[in-house]
């Protein structure tokens, strides 16, 4: 394996470990030595990859946004109806919340809750554009095909993603009586009914 490939793998493992720790213990309670120790690497070496905890936090949100964006991109490339695609996007989101809860938890509990960490370098949508772009493309296609009602982007985006984020938050709080995947059908239908022409 080439050195560059090794470094890329190491970089990703730091991101994944930090993602887990930040999501579980909170951003402020997690230190760089905590992350280094879990990875069995020196603190100094970790700083070779990320110059500060804030920079690491920003790279993580970019990483999670890209991972989620890639999955929605696959949906966007298919021929299905808007209703089917909504179902697929909800499934992706809730499956991720169940199988890799740290990905969504990070967004809700670190990214949205510690805005000062992201104010310089992750303004607005800069670090989440991988995900937002795919949602834009989904909406654009669905309005072009006459399935969804044309309206302001954010009024539709808020309804769709605010709803999903809220459900995952409730799951994280342990207040949902059923497993989150049991809600996929109803929530997909609710979103479709709210947005359709």
């Amino acid at each position, binding site marked *: 394996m080439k050195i560059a490939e090794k470094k890329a793998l190491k970089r990703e493992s730091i991101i994944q470990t930090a993602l887990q720790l930040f999501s579980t213990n909170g951003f402020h309670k997690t230190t760089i030595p905590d992350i280094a120790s879990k990875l069995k690497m020196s603190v100094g070496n970790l700083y070779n990859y990320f110059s500060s905890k804030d920079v690491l936090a920003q790279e993580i949100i970019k990483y999670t946004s890209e991972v989620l964006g890639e999955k929605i991109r696959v949906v966007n490339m298919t021929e299905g109806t808007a209703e089917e695609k909504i179902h697929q996007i909800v499934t992706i989101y809730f499956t991720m919340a169940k199988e890799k809860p740290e990905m969504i938890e990070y967004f809700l509990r670190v990214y949205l809750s510690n805005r000062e960490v992201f104010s310089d370098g992750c303004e*607005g*949508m800069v670090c989440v*554009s991988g995900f937002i*772009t795919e949602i*834009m*493309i989904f909406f654009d296609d669905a309005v072009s095909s006459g399935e969804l009602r*044309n309206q302001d982007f954010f009024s539709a985006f808020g309804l769709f993603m605010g709803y999903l984020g809220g459900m995952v938050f409730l799951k994280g709080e342990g207040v949902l009586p059923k497993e989150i995947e049991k809600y996929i059908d109803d929530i997909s239908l609710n979103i479709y009914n709210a947005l359709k022409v």
Partner: protein
Amino acid sequence: MSSQTRPKLLWLQSITCNGNTHSFLNHPDLFLILSHFELVHHPVLETAYTMEDLLQKKVSCDVLILEGSFQEEGFLKDGVEVSSLIQYYAGQAKHIITAGTCATFGGIFKQKDPAAISGFCFDLEERTMRYKTYASRLISLPGCPIHPKWLSYVLLMIANKRQIEIDTLHRPVELYGYTVHTGCTRNEYFEWKIDTKNFGLKEGCLFYEQGCQGPYTRGSCNKILWNDTSSKTRVGTPCFGCTEPNYPQESLFSTKTNMGIPAKMPLGIPRRAYLTLTGVVKSFKIKRFTERLLDYDK
């Protein structure tokens, strides 16, 4: 140059509003340009031959300028099918210039009878059955109307026996290789996705709400200025895409959007790339772009 050696120039009209004729009259060097040719007939300038001579096919030509949409049957001048007249003169011309969007692609007059009316060699972007016969001599100059200097460029290239590079729709690349967006004074606002608040303002870009088609319309309106002075977008009016094969479209003063996303992307830009850039750029608030360029109240 004597009249024997000058190429014979014939300006022939079909279904037209005269817009291209009038536009060319605005050329500051009109007569200097025409002096390279023997003008055998023109719709409004005095020439040696009359319309009657033209109809009786008494005239010959080397350079044919066609203005107006083409209709195979049913558009007559003094009992003569104009289509037969066009094809007669096009048969002998060494250069055929379709001046304006109507003559090139069908344009506004195509709306009256889309099945029967088209451009001379193109019907929108499709080649007509005449294309093969005339393609080797064809120059397309779409525009509603044409810029006078686009025509003078072609005429002077012909007069000087220079090769004109053309694209697949036979448009000179020197003129149509650009988009109208190129050279627009609002480009900084486009880059930072700042829309204008109204027509006629100096500030803001007209692409997001006011219907500007400059980023995906081919033409050099902002490179070769109109009346050597300005352009639509510079004065705060959207580009209507008048050089494009599908001109005219509807709702020229508003941008069609799908949930706020422009339905048509800038020329050749993948939607995903454009939206990624837009999302990032819109995240920043640049104070300078929120202010008037000239503060009249001070």
